[in-house]
């Protein structure tokens, strides 16, 4: 097939090395016109490097790129755009304080100082939006749009530049199930008019949902090309991980004990002074995982912050083992036995420039110092014990956390917080950005801690994760619990309805 029809986009023998890492090694793949190709691989498999080369952000050490059968040189994003390649980055490249149309026309046409034509731009954006089902108000400010809308703006930016080949880097990582479905239907529409899509993901379900074909990357190499119709899920997993991986199955709790966490009529004000959690009550028992399902931004992050003393609530009460916890004091929450695995481990969980052993004691300095001096021996012993217990892969306890993989970084946070959280574990998006193996390890850890009798408060925007781990599921919408289900009663349909705020008070 490749010999008869020139492919819209082809990479041939791409190799790229960074100091100490061979990110891509002799990668060859091609995508035809009207094709959606998934690029599947674990974190660190070299997917992002490959597409950055394609977009002119990196230069390959060797290999060539062909567009429409002609060998091209892509030295910068501008070259890529000229060739009709548009890129949707994982982290959006939008100016938050500017409007949609300003973001879309940024850098177009020579900067000749002529006035910008706002209305012409807006009209074209509207037309594009209608054509592809990507309607966005051109005059809205980016920071007032939801993440899903912002992604539409990114796509419109590429379409406005007449992109025929769209490259998307993990585009669903930030989307709700509904938004992701909209994205997929756009991609199908876009493909059907003869365009080309290269779609990077580490989620198998997405490959089957939208792609025609898939290339699996492993360790920087092309580990296999498949047509989606001929491939099974287990083929792809084996190819991606390089071995057979048996994922942990969720299992129901044995018996639950006393109430550990008791939240009573809690109200919380958000950063903008609006009420993000509204007289919310819930409880978690010993040996139980309570999963909070909800679309990001419905108050669950703030709720977790309050539970860990990082935010002062407006009103209401938090009891741990029946005793009230003083609000707004992280130390009080810690001493009451709360451990916290935050959503953003780089910002709230770790000091990347410090060592593994230092990060492992951050929460409990007083236990590891005497008269203000650090007790180095005890710190080292603690680190060695936890590294072994949690299987943290690090060259040494004195290695900087910065150099470890995301999965191992998350293990460090988990190790420290599980030690700290003798009664309650608050986990917010604990597997965000982790590959299959690492995510599975986190899941197993949470289930183990539950089985040891801890109460686990799990917040996740990934419904599959909530359904897999939780013993009880509460759906949060605009700061209220809209419904609560036992695991056996919960279905995707029931929860999905409540996620969007529909069908009111099932509780």
């Amino acid at each position: 097939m490749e010999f008869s029809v020139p492919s819209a986009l082809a990479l041939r023998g791409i190799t790229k090395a960074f100091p100490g890492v061979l990110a891509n090694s002799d990668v060859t793949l091609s995508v035809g016109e009207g094709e959606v190709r998934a690029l599947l691989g674990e974190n660190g498999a070299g997917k992002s490097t490959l597409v950055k080369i394609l977009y002119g952000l990196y230069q390959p050490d060797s290999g060539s790129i062909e567009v429409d059968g002609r060998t091209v040189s892509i030295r910068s994003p501008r070259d890529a755009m000229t060739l009709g390649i548009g890129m949707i980055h994982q982290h959006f490249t939008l100016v938050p304080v500017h409007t949609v149309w300003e973001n879309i026309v940024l850098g177009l046409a020579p900067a000749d100082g002529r006035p910008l034509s706002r209305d012409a731009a807006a009209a074209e954006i509207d037309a594009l939006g209608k054509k592809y089902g990507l309607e966005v108000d051109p005059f809205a400010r980016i920071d007032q749009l939801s993440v899903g809308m912002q992604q539409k703006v990114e796509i419109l930016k590429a379409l406005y530049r007449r992109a025929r080949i769209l490259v998307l880097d993990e585009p669903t990582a930030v989307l709700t199930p509904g938004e992701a479905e909209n994205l997929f239907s756009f991609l199908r529409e876009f493909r059907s008019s003869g365009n080309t899509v290269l779609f990077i993901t580490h989620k198998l379900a997405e490959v089957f949902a939208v792609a025609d074909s898939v290339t699996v990357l492993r360790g920087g190499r092309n580990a296999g090309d498949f047509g989606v119709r001929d491939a099974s899920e287990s083929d792809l997993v084996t190819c991606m991980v390089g071995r057979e991986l048996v994922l942990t199955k969720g299992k129901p709790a044995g018996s639950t004990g006393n109430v550990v966490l008791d939240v009573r009529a809690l109200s919380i004000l958000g950063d903008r002074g609006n009420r993000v959690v509204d007289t919310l009550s819930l409880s978690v028992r010993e040996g139980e995982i309570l999963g909070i399902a909800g679309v990001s931004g419905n108050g669950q992050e703030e709720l977790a912050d309050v539970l860990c003393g990082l935010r002062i609530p407006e009103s209401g009460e938090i009891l741990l083992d029946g005793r009230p916890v003083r609000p707004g004091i992280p130390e009080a929450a810690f001493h009451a036995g709360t451990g916290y695995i935050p959503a953003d481990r780089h910002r709230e969980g770790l000091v990347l420039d410090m060592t593994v052993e230092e990060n492992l004691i951050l929460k409990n300095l007083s236990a590891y110092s005497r008269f203000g001096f650090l007790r180095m021996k005890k710190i080292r012993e603690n680190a060695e014990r936890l590294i072994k217990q949690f299987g943290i892969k690090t060259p040494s306890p004195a290695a900087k956390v910065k150099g470890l993989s995301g999965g191992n970084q998350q293990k460090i946070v988990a190790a420290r917080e599980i030690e700290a959280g003798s009664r309650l574990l608050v986990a917010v998006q604990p597997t965000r950005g982790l590959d299959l193996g690492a995510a599975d390890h986190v899941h197993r850890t949470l289930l183990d801690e539950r089985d040891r009798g801890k109460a686990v408060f799990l917040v996740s925007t990934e419904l599959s994760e909530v359904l897999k781990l939780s013993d009880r599921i509460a759906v949060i919408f605009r700061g209220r619990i809209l419904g609560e289900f036992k695991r056996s009663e919960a279905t995707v349909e029931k929860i999905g309805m409540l996620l969007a705020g529909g069908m009111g008070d099932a509780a």
Partner: protein
Amino acid sequence: MILSGLFFRAIQMCTPLLLGSLGEVLVERTGVMNMAIEGIFLLGAWAGFTGAYLSGSLLIGFVCAMLTGVLTGALYGWITVYLKQHQIVTGVALNILAAGLGIYLYRVLFGVPLLPLTVESLKPFAVPVLSDLPFIGPVLFRQNVLTYIAFLAMPAGWWLLFRTRTGLILRSTGANPEAVDAAGINVERVQFGAVLVSSALNGLAGAFYSIGYLGLFSNDMIGGRGWIAFALCFLGNWNPLGALLGALIFGIADAAAITLQTSGFSLVPNEFLIALPYILTIVATVLRTQFNVPASLGTPYIKESK
């Protein structure tokens, strides 16, 4: 009469503050602070005087001042934009260098004259018809050319920033350089260019003190006014029109200090009047609470790489 004299002087004293703060607004919108501003004011004053004295032409003086500004700015921009060094540290170093260099170069060229050397400073230019208006005429329309230019430059700067593609690129660079990079624009070039433009304006502003107004050079003639222009940039909320408003207030304060000093008025000590613009800067800075700080201000843009 006293009042129109005061306002005339206020407008006059605004001139360098306008030029300096406009340059600062433009460059800070790209995420770079031009911290060398005070030093460039001084070197501009020196170069303007030297050029005008040696050539006998004020125009050549102003051109020399702008070129000196551009050269100093190129050094500052090279260190901060391309070598990614700390802007405040670099700026402080350049300011100290400029303070020594100004007087050194003056003495190398002219020795230590008994009386300060002078040139004839910029003459006022009366705008036909308008200058005959009562009160407004003498205050606004009998100024020198540079003052007119400075006042016209502010709305022009606003228009550039908010109504043109160039302005959109400048603003985007300070708010999110990644977005600019992703749009295929060279972030470093935008920032470096903005540093050069602001430095040229600073050089011109400095020359106003030496040859636009006094007709001589002394090493302490800037006296922190570069910093006031710097402060006006954020008092004006990174908007040329806001800076214009701020500059007017400081121009009035500056003019009041000079007018009251020369009129022998002695109810408040002279030192207080001289300090007034600086006190106002502090008060105004503390009072302002809402800022649109460019998100990447002060942070060198380092392209993502492994």
